[in-house]
């Protein structure tokens, strides 16, 4: 009783009211066998600590061990049955958004296989229900709700951009088109809105690759944003709606596959978490999901795209495993085999593959905005050191978040690297077959 009196005193100040009832509802809804078991059997052995790059980057600060983080957020919420004050929730927010990218590396290092990232995600949902979420994510959530994509781009602008890019690209590859809403296409290509908004050449590059590979593809006029920031913001209902938009468009168009751009969390959302978020009882997406890393690898393996040997990278190259493409997506070998086609001197990071560290920009960190950047740079030290140790001059990052984070780390830690996407490299190096070569007279002679 003393506690509730205390809370009232506290709440009578300027801080918002905590909706304990809502918290309890969410605690109850998530109180399944998994979370109940995880919370009750954690032996507090501390083995998870060394798996976490936040912990490693901050000189082994014990408060950054994964077990500490879930114990002091979701664990505490259950223990107190949701009767917590505003300060507690703010502390939780600092932990679940500022000290965890839900990269899931710790669940590989826990003797019981406790999935801490899932518990962090549940905590985010609870905080979201109290109106607590990083500003950058909150803005994106509004955009998704109003326009179906995180950057609030209108359908007209999107289609115009596609047309514009298709036209621009004629100089590089003749006959490039970006088909919109083509029924029955093999692949429905979905992207991160930053591509049409800020880096439209990404669309152009994808179109060149698909054209040269003779692919049957299309872009949808709606549901083209495969990202899912509500998943990271804690808005579970909207996160489900976002994937449903994409799934339903694919079903409507009757495509065989949904193809995901070089984005990590979009793959995690579309293939793994999406069916859970959207409440599909079989836990599977209605249309098979393919990631660009997989498809590009198949193009090169099968010779549908050929690389000009003279253009292969000569300088040392390393590959950044995006958590949600490698560990949480299973494509670490495809990524490596793909790099073999593009680079002569490949040097792997250590650790690598499913054990690779998060870049420090995942889990919503990059879109969370500039106020989180200092934290992002500090915890990115582990990645910067991994890259430096390889001696690589080029880092291939098939994920937009990794790309941004590595570009920032490059400046912060003076790594002297070039960060590139697969699309960019493939376009630089692929042999354009004669039938796609632009007509001589159209190409201006220098």
């Amino acid at each position, binding site marked *: 009783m003393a506690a509730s009196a205390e809370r009232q005193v506290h709440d009578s100040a300027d801080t918002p009211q905590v909706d304990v009832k809502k918290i309890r509802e969410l605690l109850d809804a998530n109180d399944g066998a*998994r979370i109940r*078991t*995880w919370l009750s059997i954690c032996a507090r052995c501390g083995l998870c600590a*060394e798996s976490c790059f936040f912990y490693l980057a901050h000189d082994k600060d014990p408060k950054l061990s994964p077990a*500490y983080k879930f114990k002091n957020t979701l664990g505490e919420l259950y223990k107190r049955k949701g009767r917590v004050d505003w300060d507690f929730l703010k502390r939780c927010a600092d932990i679940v958004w500022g000290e965890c990218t839900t990269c899931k590396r710790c*669940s*590989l290092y826990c003797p*019981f*296989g406790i999935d801490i990232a899932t518990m962090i995600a549940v905590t985010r949902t609870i905080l979201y229900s109290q109106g607590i979420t990083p500003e950058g994510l909150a803005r994106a959530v509004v955009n998704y709700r109003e326009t179906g994509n995180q950057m609030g781009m209108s359908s007209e602008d999107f289609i115009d951009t596609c047309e514009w890019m298709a036209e621009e690209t004629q100089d590089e590859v003749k006959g490039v088109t970006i088909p919109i809403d083509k029924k029955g296409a093999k692949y429905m290509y979905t992207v991160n809105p930053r591509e049409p908004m800020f880096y439209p050449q990404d669309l152009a590059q994808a179109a060149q690759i698909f054209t040269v590979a003779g692919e049957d593809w299309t872009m949808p006029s709606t549901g083209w944003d495969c990202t899912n920031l509500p998943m990271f913001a804690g808005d579970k209902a909207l996160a489900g709606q976002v994937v449903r938009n994409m799934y339903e468009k694919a079903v409507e168009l009757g495509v065989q596959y949904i193809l995901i751009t070089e984005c990590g969390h979009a793959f995690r959302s579309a293939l793994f978490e999406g069916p859970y978020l959207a409440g599909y009882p079989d836990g599977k997406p209605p249309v098979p999901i393919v990631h660009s890393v997989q498809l590009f690898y198949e193009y090169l393996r099968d010779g549908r795209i050929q690389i000009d040997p003279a253009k292969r990278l000569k300088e040392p190259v390393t590959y950044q495993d995006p958590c949600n493409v490698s560990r*949480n997506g299973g494509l670490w070998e495809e990524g490596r085999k793909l790099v073999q086609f593009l680079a002569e001197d490949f040097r792997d990071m250590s650790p690598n593959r499913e054990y690779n560290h998060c870049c420090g920009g995942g889990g919503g960190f990059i879109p969370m905005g500039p106020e989180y950047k200092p934290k992002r740079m500090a915890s990115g030290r582990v990645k910067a050191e991994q890259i430096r140790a390889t001696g690589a001059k080029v880092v291939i990052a098939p994920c937009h978040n990794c790309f941004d984070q590595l570009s920032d780390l490059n400046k912060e830690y003076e790594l002297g690297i070039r960060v590139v996407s697969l699309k960019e490299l493939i376009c630089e190096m692929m042999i354009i077959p004669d039938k796609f070569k632009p007509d001589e007279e159209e190409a201006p002679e220098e």
Partner: protein
Amino acid sequence: MSGLYQFLTGPALWATFVIFLGGLAVRIAFLYGLSKERDRVFYNHMDWNWAIKSIVHWLVPWGSVSMRRQLVFSLVFFLFHVGILAVPLFLAAHNLLWDEAFGVSLWSMPDAWADALTLMVLACALFLLVRRLVRPEVRILTTPWDYTVLVGTALPFLTGFCAYHHWGPYDLMLILHVLTSEILLICIPFTKLGHMVLFFFTRAFIGFEMGARRGARTW
């Protein structure tokens, strides 16, 4: 004193076994039911192959990347568990009691082995206790209850060892041995010691969720 001993090895022992086994059974049945109700969707990805691999790699010493990162700790951790399971099950004195009561018993190990294993368990428990105290990432997680559970796990071994070697008053040691063992068994289903069986379920889950769906090894 002998009346107390009779009680502890009679009705109290029966009660202990019922609570221990029944408690574990009820806890598993409850969690299974709950999982069917609330975590049903995950059963779609159930895969025995990945589940078993995920379990076995964590039962074998240094079978996982995580254990290989902390060689000493994982060895201690392994030996501790071996001793805890082997001594109570295969101690000749225990088997004699089983034989007297039901005419059946398990294989018995030589007393010298049991002695060595018991000392090993105690040494491991001491190591784990010190580790909890000195390693910051473990100390920060540790609650008074964690120390209690660790000491509580070691006590039956300490008292059993003293009784066998007639250190201290024999009758008292024996009673303390039976009593601490019964308390420990009764606590297992209701505490984190439930990992004795729940380990297999959580490992299986993460094994197929990461393995069967993504091909990622959780060891």
